[in-house]
């Protein structure tokens, strides 16, 4: 039987999502400092904000070292159908994206899209979001809380349970994370590093037990990209010694840094914040994508104050092309971190193939 590729969707979505809403745009909630985040409620969705994502990236040791995986759920409220009563109104659009990096070999990925309430749903009281059979949720078990990830696709699927080994890491100022000079350019940003991964992974037609380490991010905002910004570079690294490192910079079209920030929680739990002036990204080696033509600095030297770090990808070609929520071509993949600190985690580079549209 002929099956049409599910990936037809992206071809069509641009016209639909980019066409300007004809009605009065929705008033989104602003991101303001000084809000106290409460959990598990703030693990849930914040539908009044424009965009939100739940982002799990990780590196496995079993069945094979340096297999990278990620599962991301996006929620977007583009301002469509705002005055419709129907529960099916396409107000909240959900996207999900999953990828699997087989080091030195290839990248597998798959995606889903749906409107909330039609084969997809999110909770506003806890982390629980699904599109079809893909799901990311927090479960309170007798042994403590865990995150559960489930996804399936023709090429690969996994079902992971993520057990926290450390408390949450609230980025920026208690979770208020600035993204630019302007006060409005900010998000609420919660990280959860050093999650222990256990579960099963299927690829190449074989189901195998899996274990490793993962990093959870949950971020919601209304505006994070300033007028000049075209994209960002970001890393989230589980350090080998049990510490965690997050660093990002916002770039303009010339590649200059508009804003930057980093946070390092050492093995002892001490958090050190690096202000914009203390963070510098220097490309060491570029990899040009044969598909998009974009050139990504896959090896970057990151200077954080006196620390000098270098990224080394487990696979050069970890470029992705998705429809979330608008068509986006970006690089996101598993890297090893070397230098003053060592560890494994994900590097994300957006805006190299045209300005990022949220």
């Amino acid at each position: 039987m002929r099956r049409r590729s599910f990936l037809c969707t992206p071809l069509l979505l641009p016209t639909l999502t980019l066409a300007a809403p004809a009605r009065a745009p929705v008033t989104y909630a602003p991101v303001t400092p000084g809000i106290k985040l409460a959990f598990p409620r703030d693990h849930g969705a914040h539908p009044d904000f424009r965009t939100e994502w739940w982002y799990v990236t990780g590196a496995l040791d079993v069945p094979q070292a340096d297999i990278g995986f990620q599962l991301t759920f996006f929620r977007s409220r583009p301002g469509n159908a705002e005055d419709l009563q129907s529960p099916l109104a396409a107000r909240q659009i959900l996207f999900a994206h999953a990828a699997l990096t087989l080091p030195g070999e290839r990248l597998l990925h798959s995606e889903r899209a749906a409107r909330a309430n039609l084969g997809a749903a999110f909770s506003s009281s806890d982390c629980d979001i699904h599109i079809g059979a893909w799901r990311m949720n927090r479960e309170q078990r007798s042994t403590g809380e865990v995150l559960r990830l489930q996804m399936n696709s023709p090429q690969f699927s996994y079902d992971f349970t993520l057990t926290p080994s450390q408390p949450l890491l609230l980025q920026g100022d208690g979770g208020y994370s600035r993204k630019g000079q302007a006060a409005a350019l900010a998000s609420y940003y919660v990280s959860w590093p050093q999650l222990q991964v256990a579960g099963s992974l299927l690829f190449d037609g074989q189901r195998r037990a899996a274990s490793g380490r993962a990093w959870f991010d949950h971020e919601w905002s209304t505006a994070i990209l300033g007028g000049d910004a075209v994209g960002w570079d970001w890393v989230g690294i589980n350090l080998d010694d049990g510490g965690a490192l997050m660093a990002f910079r916002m770039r303009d079209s010339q590649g200059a840094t508009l804003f930057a920030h980093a946070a390092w929680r050492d093995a002892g739990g001490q958090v050190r914040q690096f202000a914009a002036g203390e963070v510098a990204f220097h490309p060491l080696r570029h990899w040009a994508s044969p598909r998009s033509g974009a050139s990504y600095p896959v090896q970057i030297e990151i200077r954080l104050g006196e620390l000098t770090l270098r990224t080394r990808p487990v696979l050069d070609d970890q470029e992705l092309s998705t429809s979330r929520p608008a068509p986006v071509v970006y690089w996101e993949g598993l890297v090893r971190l070397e230098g003053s600190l060592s560890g494994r985690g994900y590097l994300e580079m957006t805006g190299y193939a045209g300005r990022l549209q949220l």
Partner: protein
Amino acid sequence: MQALSRLSWWLIRAQFTTRRAATLLSMLAVALGVALGYAIHLINDAALADFARAMKSVQGDPDAVIAARDSAGSVPLATLNAIARDPAVLVIAAVIETRVRIDNARTPVTLIGIDVFSAAAVMPDLLPRHNEQAAAPNLFNGGVYASPALLAKLAQRAPDSDSGARPGRTLTLVRGEQQWPATLAGDLPAARPDDLLLVADIAWVQERFGPVDAVSEGRVRLAPDSDLATWRKKWAQQLPAGLLIRVADDDSARVSNLSRAYRVNLNVLALVALLTGAFLVFATQLTSVAQRSTQFALLGVLGLSPRMRLLQVLLEGLAIGVPGALLGLGLGYALAVAFTRLLGGDLGGGYFAGSAPPIIPLPAPALVFLALGCLASLAGASYPAYLNRMQPLAQALKTGFAQQSHADTARATLPRLRLPLFLALAALALAQLPPLFALPLAGYAAIALVLVAGIASAPLLTQLLFGWLSAQALPAPQRIALQNVAQAPLMAQVAASGLIVSFALTASMVIMVSSFRVAVDQWLDHVLPAPLYLRSKATPLPQDLLAALAQPDAPFTRVERMANASLIIDPQRPQVALLVREIDRRDPAARLPVTGPLLAPPATTPAVWISEPMAEIYRLAPGQTLRLPLLGREIEVFIGGVWRDYGRQFGAVVISRQDYQQLGGDFQPTDLALWPRPGEEAHASAWLAPWADQYGLEVADSAEIRRLSLSIFDKSFAVTYALEAAAMLIGLFGLAVTLAASVWLRARELATLGALGFDRRMLSRAVMLEGALIATVGVLIGLACGVGIGAILTHVVNPQAFHWRMALAIPWAALVTGAAITLAAAVLASRHAARQATRLPVAQVLASAQ
């Protein structure tokens, strides 16, 4: 072998040049049979493919569809969302489908609410294209998208630039009371050229037209590694009673069921044409064998083996069959193309409305029909070939064609009646059997037996009649002619059997069609009690009209409302109509043409009255209870009775409005029966006119509906009439050929008579008398068989194939007229033979030792 095939070829060529007319006509008859069968096949194939394509374009090609079993039902959102979480499901695409009228246009169009995120995977043909130039909201914000055909129609309706099909224009979509001023935002680039479709976002359709918290259907694409059957079984157990899972196989089975009986009947008619073709080959080959018996005997004496004598006649049959069948294939293709252009894919049958599908011939079926044509000609040639093989050479060489000496002529009448009697009894027994594979196969077999019985009784009757006549005091030539026939009945039998078959088939068709027409006529009387009818096409009638009708100033003494819906009892069968009517539970016969017993329903159980087709398809009887999928659940109902329905072949259920509303149904009338106040008929029509205009309603008086119904009836039998004419022509031609042959065979006899002093006129009269008598036998037996077959068609084939029951109404006047015309034609045909007889040069015939 090569040498022999050359001889064989010489003989075939000689046969073709010397018997050009007969050979050509046999060829044409075979061609006709093949052409009809092939054309029916092509048309039906194309219509089904077209239907399937149309369905696919609107429904896509899902692995399975979750749908409500009744048209008033829907799939709850909760159910849909539960299925969506199943890992075996790749995606489930929800749709809300409804019928709306655009700006009060009369014909409603289909409005499909889609979810663009899931539609892409299942029904990509429905994906809309936004017009970037238009100042129109996008899909999510209420833009609607029209198929090219609809755009063309809109542009045609309002050619001025301001409205028409311009993107950005507002279309007022109306469904009953509800209205939605939607903005045209683009088109549907992948829609089929004749689809009249509107596509909008599912949320907008739900917001304007419902259903609340539910959708019409969920179309499922399964993950590549999941098994459909297992998945279906699992969910079938979990779904609410009012829902069902349909898979692609169900759809094709349903589509095929839709026209199956009709198709089979047409194919049987084609088979009849092919059989008459075989008969003509038989007549031609038999006479040619008889005529060439001396030649074949000579070849036999010279050393042509018996096998080759058999084979040669078969080969000659094939030499007629192959070109005939090839011609038939070409003709069939041409017919198929012409018919689909003129009548559509269902030959006027009304099953696949409005499509003129492309005809695509494929090699395999063409080969099958080619083989059928060859087989028919071989079958026709086989008995002559056998006779040729069995000719005693020495005798045939001396005296020509030797008929078996009829030692059995002396046999008593009674034992010779045994075979026809036995066949007739067997036919009677077959007619009692139930349908096989939902087709009246036993009925068809019974028809064949009746024909064989008729043919088998022909020699007896011929002999009796001719023997008796020749014993009378008649002028000498006539008596001699009669004795000839009585003693050599083979040719007479051949001539008569052609007429028997063709006249029987024609008469039976006339009887069946006439019975049917009389029954439909009476039925229309019963189902159209009111003088006026008002109908809204598939959308509910506006409440303000219903309110106005309830006012005392409305010029009607009585108004009955009816709602139309449909439900699925078996996903492999077409939908059953559900009619909600204002009907008295205690007296349904006042409104329904009830057949059989009427049972009073228990007070606590809702009652339904089912149509005859429904009773037969689902094997239901009055007094039974039935679990009916109604209003999203299964409801136990009592079957109060069965009523006659010629309108809905796939079954209908009537339920009273009270019962329906008590069950929680929302009674939204779509049809009205109206009784104007006496003397105010014109006023009543005038009163309705503005309503009809405003809401696109149809008003018709009962006479008009009756006229229309009967004209549709007549149209659907158009093909049948054409076939009847062909059968009659072939029968008459067979008579002419065989008579001519028998004259030729008796050339010496006739010449002797001539030499003895009979003049040409006397000889010619004798031959014509012979023809007339043979035709009389043929027509009499044909008429008897025709009545028998007509009864089988009416009482067995029609109920079993179409579930239509009716009384036998024999149009004697038409039959007698037909018989008279046939006789006259037969006499004319025998004139041709008579002329040949009198042209024989007496001296030469006598001189030749043949």
